[in-house]
């Protein structure tokens, strides 16, 4: 017999004090410095003199319970039963014992098959979205392209040879749940939504009209029933209405493409946070391994690795060398579609006589 399921239990966030390693608990707020011993291994030193060695491994994010148990096995054996995940889906094994570091690395590689790295100036694990595996809106599968891309980039995950850290994200619709990153992969649509007029009763039409950022949707009677129409000249193919109403189908297997964006940075270091900008567009949505995406990302990383200076993130590097050089180095064509036409368009133009000649 189960207990009543009525009403919320309001338990909230678990008490982290039960979930942090005893050395973290003892030295909470008292850490002094850290040093990166080698790619994937960081030593944190407390003012008390305690050390905590952290081994970082890349995970595929989606895991079976059996794999999660295997991760726990390693944490039980070497980390006193504690572990941590990062927001980029890496898993971290912590131990106060230096001699455990190599044992953890061996166990992670042999028992999990996860690579060690993702620290410092590496290409870290890719944050990505649900895709065809489990989302209701996707036009591509982020997990697949991420797996294929990381197969390519694993060497850069395991080394710290970039000018600064590189964050990559992949998103399976234009809502872009993968968010800003140094390099970001997004799907794009190329025509207005196709409206299933027979199935509009499942949607709240005023909300469908109101959600359009371009005011392109208006109410219309179709065959005696309430529906909407889309003004094609105004529609920017964003798919906001599709999230609101499944009968406004924005996706098209024949015409959807992928685009690559560069220069997103969340941290306020140096020049502050920045948003990502269009690098190249029109890449085919090409499962199962999306080779054109891997190829484009590789070009950006090769150029960045070659000409970026220490501490420059991708966006800062491009600002220094200029966008013309970026397009020259990557070989991506600069097109009229690269020019902003949103509300801030004029502020994105080069309003000076500055030019590299």
């Amino acid at each position: 017999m189960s207990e009543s399921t009525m009403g919320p239990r309001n338990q909230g966030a678990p008490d982290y004090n039960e979930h942090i390693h005893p050395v973290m608990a003892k030295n909470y707020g008292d850490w002094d410095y850290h040093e990166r011993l080698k790619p994937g291994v960081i030593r944190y030193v407390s003012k008390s003199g305690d050390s905590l060695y952290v081994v970082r491994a890349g995970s595929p994010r989606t895991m079976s319970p059996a794999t999660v148990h295997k991760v726990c096995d390693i944490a039980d054996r070497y980390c006193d039963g504690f572990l941590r995940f990062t927001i980029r889906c890496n898993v971290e094994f912590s131990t106060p014992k230096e001699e455990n570091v190599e044992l953890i690395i061996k166990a992670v590689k042999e028992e999990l098959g996860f690579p060690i790295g993702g620290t410092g100036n590496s290409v870290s694990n890719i944050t990505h979205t649900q895709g065809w595996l489990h989302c209701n809106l996707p036009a591509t599968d982020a997990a697949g392209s991420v797996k294929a891309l990381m197969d390519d980039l694993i060497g850069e995950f395991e080394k710290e040879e970039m000018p600064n850290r590189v964050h990559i994200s992949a998103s399976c619709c234009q809502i872009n749940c993968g968010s800003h990153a140094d390099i970001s992969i997004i799907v794009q649509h190329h025509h207005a939504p196709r409206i299933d007029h027979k199935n509009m009763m499942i949607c709240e039409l005023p909300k469908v009209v109101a959600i359009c950022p371009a005011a392109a949707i208006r109410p219309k009677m179709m065959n005696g029933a309430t529906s909407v129409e889309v003004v094609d000249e105004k529609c920017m193919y964003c798919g906001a209405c599709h999230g609101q109403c499944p009968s406004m189908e924005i996706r098209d297997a024949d015409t959807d493409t992928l685009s690559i964006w560069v220069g997103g940075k969340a941290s306020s270091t140096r020049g502050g946070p920045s948003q990502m900008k269009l690098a190249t567009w029109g890449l085919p949505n090409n499962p199962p391994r999306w080779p054109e995406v891997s190829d484009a990302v590789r070009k950006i990383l090769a150029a960045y690795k070659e000409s970026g200076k220490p501490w420059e993130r991708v966006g800062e590097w491009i600002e220094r060398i200029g966008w013309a050089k970026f397009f020259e180095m990557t070989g991506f064509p600069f097109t009229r579609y690269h020019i902003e036409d949103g509300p801030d368009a004029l502020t994105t133009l080069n309003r000076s006589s500055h030019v590299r000649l």
Partner: protein
Amino acid sequence: MADNTTEKKGAMKMDLNTPMLDQLEDGPWPSFVTDLKGHAEKRPQVGQLLNQLEESYENRWNYWTGAVVNVSGYGGGIIARLSQKADKYPDLAQFNTIRVIPPPGFVYNTTKLRELADIAEKHGAGIMQLHGMTGDLLLLGYDNAGSFAAAEDIMKAGFDIGGSGGALRTLQCCVGQARCEMACYDTMKATRFLTNRYIDFLHMPEFMYKFKFKLSGCANDCANATHRSDMPIIGTWRGPMQVDQAKVAEFIEEKGIEAVIDNVLTRCPTRCLSLKGKELIVDNENCVRCMHCINVMHKALKPGVDKGISILLGGKRTLKIGDTMGFMLVPFMKLESDEDYEALANLIDNVWEFWNDNAHDHERVIEFISRVGLGTFLKGIGMEAEPAMVARPRTSPYIKFEELAPPRMGGEQNQNPPVWQREPEVQES
């Protein structure tokens, strides 16, 4: 009362036919396909899932429909997923996601994580994702009864389920003071405080649209708060940063003076660092707490001792008004005493009240501010404007100064009621 165990009848076993997905088993990066294939031996519905995913790969098309399903007493936390190919893959007919609120900072003891893994498997497909982009631990693949039973077990294990829809979403933070010397406030404590204080808003979608907090201990913003949260809370400090000149000298000896010039001095955004021999001079008044020099020379330089938080507002990705990032709302406040936490909650209450009373449906807080203007918003939440909020003052001269507007014909002062309070003017006949 139904039996709590939903390990019923057993899902239909199906031969895998996944030539395209098989190609994702090659290569050195760990493959989710390989892991899920192994898991399909135990949970046959996962085999159906892989076969459906293969069809998606073949046809470049998606076969999931979203819907609403709720645990009794909750308005969120379960994301219903219904397969459009349920006739072919019967155990995908209901294949919901459960969002579990993880411990702040994604720290786990293995006993509890194993318990969650067992619960995940007990009531459905049990695919785990660590973690979703909002910051939840995701469990995939439950029919409605399985979702309810799993949620019940999750709560018995001491966890709770997270937000979805127009609600407060599960909070996310960096590791903070638990393991980082840079952290200027206790991100884990603040995350737990806000989660528990506002747990009702996580469970019930009462807002005009979603609202996210992300908490980073310093300007390095490891929680990606600036881009990804409606209210980024970022650690900072007042007064001078801490400089250990002996370690500065050590750094210069080890790396060379050029490295300090190229990587530290000239990279300071406000040019407030200079060298006098091997001594680092800091113009602390002009330091904007960007963390760069501290990142480079982290043994020699530390944040100041009078630590606190900056509160920003309005980060989100592009839909519908274009990309936004959080802007500075409160440059500094302490976050240590109970009173400090109450002051933070008070600010949040004010922001939510004004936003939810006046925003349109589906309007994130920054979209609302974009529509009514920050000046109007500040008046609505009872805050004074200050220069730290803007990159520069306005350039447009067309301004409605309330104080300078002439009296009305009747002689009374024109109070210019704000647009959200204005009654329609009635014409007397």
